Structure formats: C-alpha cells, structure tokens
C-alpha cells in the first residue's frame, strides 16, 4: 500500500461519526486532565487510557492520539495562565507565557500555542510517515542481538540523559526492570516474585505504575506546598485573537520549533523537554526580537510549544518503526496499542499496513481536534482552573483509585497505586528521575525476550551480542553518549565548585 493510498485509507476510517466523537472526547478529556495542576500529561494519559480499551482498535487509537495531544496542550495552559507548568516540557513556556498573560494577551498566546502545536504536530506526522517506512525496512534485517542493543542501549541512554547524576537515572531504571519481572514468565509460564498472590501473576499494570509514581506523587507535592491558590486571570473572548504583528512574529519561531522538535523526538530521552529548551535557546540567538525574549515575547512561547508538540509526535517514529518506546507517554501508548492487538514494530507496515495508516490518520485527526475544541474552549479551561484545589485534588485522587481498580477489578492495584505513589514521592524528593523507571518497566520484557532469543540462537555464545556491525555500532553510540554525559556532568560539578575554592 503506497503512502497516499494508505493515508487515504486511514483517513476514511478516521472520518466516521463514531471516530470523530472519540477524537472529540479524547481531546476534551486529555486537555481537561492536562490542565489540572498536579497531574501532568503522563499520569493523565495513564488515567484515561483504560477507557479506550473497550473500544474497537481504530476508535481506541484515535481517542488515544487525541488524549495525548490534549494532555500536552493542557499542560501548557496552566503554564501560561498561572505560571504553573503541568509538566517538565512546559517549564520554559512559563517565562514568556505568564508575562504575556499579565500584559492581557493570554487569549492571543493560547491561540498561537494551539496554532503552533497544530502546525508542528501536523508537519511532524508527515515526517513520521516518511521516516517510519525507511526505519521499518532497516529494522527487518535486525536480529535479536541488534534489538537487544537497541532496547537495552536505548534504556541506558535514557537513564543517563534524563538525570544529572548517574545514580539518579540508573537506580530507577533498575527498579523499573525489577518491576517488569513480576508475574508470569512468557516462555516457561513460571511465576516470578508473585508471593503467591494470583493477581500478581499478570504483572504490574502499567497504568497503575504511571499514575502512582507520576500522579499520586505529584499530588503529594502539591498538597505539601499548598499555597493560597492564585486564580487565573479572566480571558475575554475579544482578546482571543492575536494581532497581525503577533502572528507575523510567530511564523518563523513555529517553523524553527517544528524542525527542532521533530529531530529531538527521534532520540531516546526526555526529548520533548530538551526540544523546548533547545527551541527557546535557538530563538534567543536567532530571533529579530531576541532582546524581548524572557520579558513577554510571543517567540518565547510559540517556538518551545511547537517544538513540544512536534517532539511528542516524532517520538512515535521509534515506537511505530521499531516497536520501542523511548518515553513514558509512548510506553503507555505501546501498552494501550497491544491491548487493541496492534503490535507496533517493523512488521506492522508489511503485515498490517491498514493498522499503521489508521494510527497515522489518528494522529492527524487528534491534532485537528486539538485546535477545533481548544481554541473556542479556552474559557472552559480557565473556569476549570478556578475550581479550588481542596475540591479538585481529592476528586482526582479518587478517580485515580477507581481507574486503577477498574483495570482488572482488583483491590491489589489500588494498594499498589498508593505504595507506588509514596515511592515516586521519595524518589522525586531526592531528585531521582521517574521516566527510566516507567520505560524500564515497559522495555524489560522486550529486553529479556531478545536476550534469551540471542542466547538460544547462538547456542549460549554471549559474543553474539557484539558480533554484528549494527550491534557494535549501536553499543558504540551508547558508550559515547554515556561517556559524554558523564564528562559534561563532571565538568559542571567542577565549574560549580570552583568559585567556592577561590
């Protein structure tokens, strides 16, 4: 199936009443949960994804994509209106976004963010369409050794890049791998680390893990530092539209943000966060209005938010092409796709091309729905933010508990939710990173599978893992990245301690 035919097929599937309604509901729910302070897109997505499980594959995929875009947009809204980033990737938006809000340009900024996110996301989807087939063709020649290098090496890179210190990423990664070994072992059917509890035979639910370590932990942080709630400023409809000058100044940053975001999304690590910082730095060095950036300039919001959405989309390239998630959000998407019997990876395009194109179409539809509902509904999100924390946060916690229970009607998941929340809180308090934990929990079974397959095929010869040129190349990249990160971290420590010694 060619690209045009495939896309046309996917769009035909997507544009039915049921699927459009699913896209609307997904974008609405995703934005609502993303707007909530204290939850963030990853935990929000984890909370909402189980609701897609009961739907058909194409409807479920469309709703998921819309939720993802909605959650990311919602996180930006709190940054701009309340100076409270909903996630790490929205931190940089606070700088200029909130200053523009105080100048009375909140509506216009939100409009530009929606437009930029749409443009960045759409162009990024086109990039995904072009890159994934090439990557998939390359990956067909991969064997267990190459996939082991890719999954294990990618996870190591993620753990190193996510955190400043080695231990801050490595220990959570190891913990996530430990979690992944709980349950029924795939090949022999042996129960591992279940302590005789039947429910644990199915392993740890990914949604419970994500909501616990991200959502519950984050709510604990918010409750701990509860301050008198700042009410978001009222946004008038007539102030919604940007001026011609604001639009003119936004185009170039949106273009640059798209490219930066797309490229960053292809690498393992906190791509969206890195993309926003990189896009902001690029604007500060190339923009005609660089002096205004940092003091309330549209460039300081348009570029990072476009990069954020573009990166979130291009993160789908390794997921769809290789079947490997390199972020918490795509890890959740992988889990949800497998529930719908969609196995992303190099064979997806050859064995189920219609499914692949449905996923692509769902990304287009989700992106469109983001703009369609979020621009007119900015007032609704502002009103949501005016709901007091003492009502919102306990309600969200209840929904998290019910959502966890609903996954397999087990109280065990609710107990685990609380325990994981406490673990997530403790790790974050000590500046440990949580993304390697979640991605480790998802990649663990894949890493084990490729490891055992490699040993089986080589009759126990471990040198198989570094005997092919591709595997050697991948491990070399891993070693170089780990070494450079460590050198950079060491250099920063020396620079920070130098003034004290002087």
């Amino acid at each position, binding site marked *: 199936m060619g690209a045009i035919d495939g896309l046309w097929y996917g769009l035909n599937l997507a544009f039915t009443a049921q699927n459009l309604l699913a896209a609307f509901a997904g974008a609405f729910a995703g934005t609502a949960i993303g707007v909530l302070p204290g939850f963030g897109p990853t935990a929000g997505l984890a909370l909402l994804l189980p609701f897609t499980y009961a739907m058909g594959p194409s409807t479920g995929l469309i709703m998921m994509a819309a939720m993802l875009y909605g959650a990311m947009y919602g996180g930006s809204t709190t940054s701009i209106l309340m100076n409270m980033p909903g996630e790490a990737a929205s931190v940089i938006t606070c700088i200029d976004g909130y200053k523009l809000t105080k100048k009375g340009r909140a509506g216009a900024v939100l409009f530009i963010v929606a437009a930029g996110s749409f443009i960045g996301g759409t162009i990024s989807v086109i990039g995904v369409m072009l890159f994934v087939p090439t990557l998939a063709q390359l990956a067909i020649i991969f064997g267990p050794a190459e996939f082991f290098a890719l999954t294990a090496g990618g996870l190591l890179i993620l753990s190193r890049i996510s955190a400043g210190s080695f231990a801050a990423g490595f*220990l959570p990664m190891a913990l996530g*791998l*430990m979690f992944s070994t709980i349950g029924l072992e795939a090949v022999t059917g042996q129960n591992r680390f279940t302590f005789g509890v039947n429910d644990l035979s199915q392993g740890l639910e990914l949604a419970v893990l994500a909501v616990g370590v991200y959502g519950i932990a984050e709510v604990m942080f918010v409750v701990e530092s*509860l301050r008198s709630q700042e009410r978001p400023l009222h946004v008038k409809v007539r102030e919604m539209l940007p001026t011609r000058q604001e639009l003119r100044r936004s185009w170039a940053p949106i273009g640059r943000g798209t490219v930066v975001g797309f490229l960053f999304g292809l690498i393992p690590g906190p791509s969206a966060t890195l993309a926003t910082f990189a896009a902001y730095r690029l604007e500060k060095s190339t923009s005609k209005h660089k002096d205004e950036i940092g003091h309330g300039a549209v460039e300081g919001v348009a570029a990072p938010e476009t990069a954020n959405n573009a990166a979130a989309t291009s993160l789908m390239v390794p997921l769809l092409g290789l079947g490997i998630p390199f972020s918490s959000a795509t890890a959740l998407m992988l889990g949800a796709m497998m529930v719908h019997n969609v196995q992303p990876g190099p064979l997806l395009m050859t064995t189920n091309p219609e499914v692949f194109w449905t996923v692509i179409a769902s990304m287009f539809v989700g992106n469109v729905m983001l703009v369609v509902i979020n621009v007119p509904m900015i007032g609704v999100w502002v009103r949501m933010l005016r709901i007091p924390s003492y009502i919102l*946060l306990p*309600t969200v916690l*209840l929904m998290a508990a019910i959502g966890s*229970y609903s996954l397999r009607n087990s109280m065990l998941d609710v107990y685990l939710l609380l325990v994981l929340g406490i673990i997530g809180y403790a*790790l974050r308090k000590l500046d440990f990173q949580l993304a390697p934990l979640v991605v480790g929990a998802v990649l663990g079974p894949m890493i084990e599978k490729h490891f*055992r397959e490699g040993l089986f095929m080589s009759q126990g010869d471990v040198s198989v893992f570094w005997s092919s040129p591709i595997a050697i190349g991948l491990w070399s990249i891993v070693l170089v990245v780990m070494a450079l990160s460590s050198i950079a971290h060491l250099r920063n420590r020396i620079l920070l301690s130098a003034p004290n010694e002087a």
Partner: protein
Amino acid sequence: MDAVHLQKRKGYLSIGTGGLLLSAGYLGMAFQLPLGDMARPGAGIFPILVGGLMVFASLSTIWEGWRTGTGEQLELPSGQDRSRLLVLVGAMSVYVVGLPWLGQIVASTLFLISLMRVMSDVSWLRVITYSLVISITIYVVFVRLLNVPMPRGIVNF
C-alpha cells in the same frame, strides 16, 4: 512553606542501602528460579542480571552520596505542610483498606471530608455537602454509567 532540611548525602546513602537490601531479597528469590543453561536460559537468568544491575545501581548511589558534600540540602516539609501530607497518606491508606468493607460511597465521602478539612478553612457543612455530592456523582458516573463494579460495602448500592 515550613521546611526542615535533610542532607542529600544522607538521603542517597539511605536509598542506596535500601536498594542493596532490596537486591539481596530479589536475588535470593531469583536464584530459586530455574536457571536453565546458557543455550536455553531459564526464567531466573534475566532476574539475576537485573538484580546485579540493582546492586550496581545501589552501590553507585551510595558512592555518589558519600562524595556529596554535607552542604547540599533537601527540603522536607514540617509543621502544617507535613501534617497535610501525613493526612493525605493516612486518608488514602484508610480509603484503600476500608474500601472493600465500607463500599465506594462511604469510603469516598470519608476520604473527601478528611482531605478537604485539612486543605481548606471552609465550614464542616460545606465540606460534608461537597463530599457527598462528589461521591454520589462519581458513583453514578463510574458505577452506574460505566459499569465499574466497585465494592458495595455496608451501603450495598
């Protein structure tokens, strides 16, 4: 925010030590699994590798903690901030333990009342009213409309 400070060094040493203890238990259980041989690795091989990784990670954490200066401090909550946090954890604990017996509506209402009182200065009447409205709304949406079979408990709805 009221705060007490904890040396980051102590935090890292504690986490690293905890990790070592966890690894010891994990590896103890992993070695009891069938190991197979190199050509046909059993269910225990990967957990042993992961346990080894965890040992390494824990030792790295202890090493980093050891090398961290005593000047690096972390803020822990104290006073009212700590009380709120403890009430949150306590309320959630009581909710998850009590849910099977009390049922969704009663457990949710009690949970909401305790948290809302701690997080705000609003009157008891308003807190109880909000809690009941939210609990019943959640019940209607999730249990009745979405058919999530939450525990019924003493109310038996």
